[in-house]
């Protein structure tokens, strides 16, 4: 079978079979919609409630993108700082790890209390904590992965630290950085949602997480599923967008982005 058609057709077929089975299960088993709504009902709800959910999606999306941007900028800067001094790296890296492994649900209440008047900022900080580590870890690895012989060559030609960073270490790190960014994109969304879950509903500007909680309390399962669907679609869109960006930036040279000749 043609590979390109298979790449689209195969997952599509799986999805259709799954949806069909789901709908059949709900109808044959006569499962009430407040336990498990069928996909048709979810689609209908999404169509009807979509506009009202869209405002909330925008709030979540703003937090997510701001957190991702902060992760990319601060994470990248931190990695470049680490690359300047081994001492700095070994002194600070463990704390980045500690921040990464601490469950966000455990520290989110603290952050929300500390930044009590600034809802957006507190959610942003939570999402950032979840999202920044892959960028730092990957970029640090990338900056240290420059070809040893090329490093020698730069030394031989008397390159300055700045030149070595600009012409050698940064380009070497770019594929690692982009891979980290792709992971961070998904994590930023998760962080934004989790933080909002912890922060609770209420407030004039509430995101999709609040809608999900609300719908759960009111047993509006179709609406909950519709909100979930929007979240998933957003996550996929961010992932795809970052993938496209990576292809644009390193597609002409890096192994990971090259088409395989068969």
């Amino acid at each position, binding site marked *: 079978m043609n590979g390109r058609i298979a790449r689209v057709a195969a997952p599509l077929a799986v999805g259709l079979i799954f949806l069909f089975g789901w709908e059949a299960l709900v109808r044959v088993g006569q499962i009430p919609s407040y336990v498990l709504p069928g996909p048709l009902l979810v689609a209908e709800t999404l169509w009807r409630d979509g506009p009202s959910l869209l405002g909330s999606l925008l709030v979540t999306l703003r937090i997510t993108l701001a957190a991702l941007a902060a992760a990319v900028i601060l994470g990248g800067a931190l990695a470049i700082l680490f690359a300047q001094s081994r001492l700095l790296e070994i002194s600070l890296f463990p704390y980045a790890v500690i921040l990464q492994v601490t469950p966000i649900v455990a520290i989110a209440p603290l952050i929300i209390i500390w930044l009590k008047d600034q809802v957006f900022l507190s959610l942003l900080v939570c999402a950032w904590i979840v999202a920044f580590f892959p960028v730092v870890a990957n970029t640090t690895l990338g900056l240290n992965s420059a*070809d040893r*012989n*090329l490093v*020698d*060559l*730069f*030394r*031989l*030609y*008397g*390159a300055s630290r700045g*030149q070595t960073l600009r*012409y*050698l270490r940064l*380009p070497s790190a*770019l594929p690692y950085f982009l891979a980290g960014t792709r992971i961070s994109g998904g994590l930023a969304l998760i962080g934004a949602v989790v933080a909002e879950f912890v922060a609770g509903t209420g407030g004039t500007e509430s995101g999709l997480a609040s809608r999900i909680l609300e719908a759960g309390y009111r047993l509006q399962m179709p609406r909950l599923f519709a909100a979930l669907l929007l979240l998933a679609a957003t996550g996929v869109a961010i992932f795809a967008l970052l993938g496209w960006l990576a292809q644009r930036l*390193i597609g*002409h*040279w*890096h192994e990971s982005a*090259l088409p395989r000749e068969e």
Partner: protein
Amino acid sequence: MEREGSGAPMIALDGVGKRFRSGVEALAGIDLAVAPGSFVSLLGPSGCGKSTLLRIIAGLVPASSGRVVAESDLAKRLGFVFQEPTLMPWATVWQNVYLPLRLAGKWREDVAERIAETLAALGLEGFEQAYPRQLSGGMRMRVSIARALVTEPRLLLLDEPFAALDEFTRFRLNEDLLRLWQRHHWTVVFVTHSIFEAVFLSSRVVVMTPRPGRIVADLPVELPYPRESALRTAPAYAEQCRRISALLSEAMT
């Protein structure tokens, strides 16, 4: 050889030894003087420290003992070619060759002509905008050599540059390298484990043995330049190879 002028050597090593931090003694008591204009091959089996010796000459690795005396400013007039092409995969052929000049603060407009000439000398016209991955192994090595030559070095150091290439490509690159060496007046130190390659290229062959790396023989190659591919089948060439081969196996036992 008439090319090996008298006078001061370009670089001279005096009792140079190298012990790595792991305790391995890579080199011991190396005395070597390289005359300007000569083509010297360091020949020996793998592990004999010949690459380490080349790195010491380049100043990439410090010697643990002994002295290295070089012509003044030689460090700025070096060209180095690694075993691998060692190109920047994200940069085009042109940008890769421009690198040493860029690091020296030269503007691309000022050196465009020189880069074009160097690329032409290595048969790389038309590949300026290609990326390394689009090139064959032999072409990548040509780019690597072009990068080393573009600074117009006085001393060219090559570390088994053709070891990974097929024989046809290696022969062609050998001949091209010789032609360029005769046209310009660099000095070459060439590391290889191939007796045939060393004899074909060099005006002088320095034979090394391992554990620790020592020089066991230092002989001139008595074959006139220019050397063309026809030489590979000449009896005189075979005789030189046989002589060095015998020396090497004697030293190894």
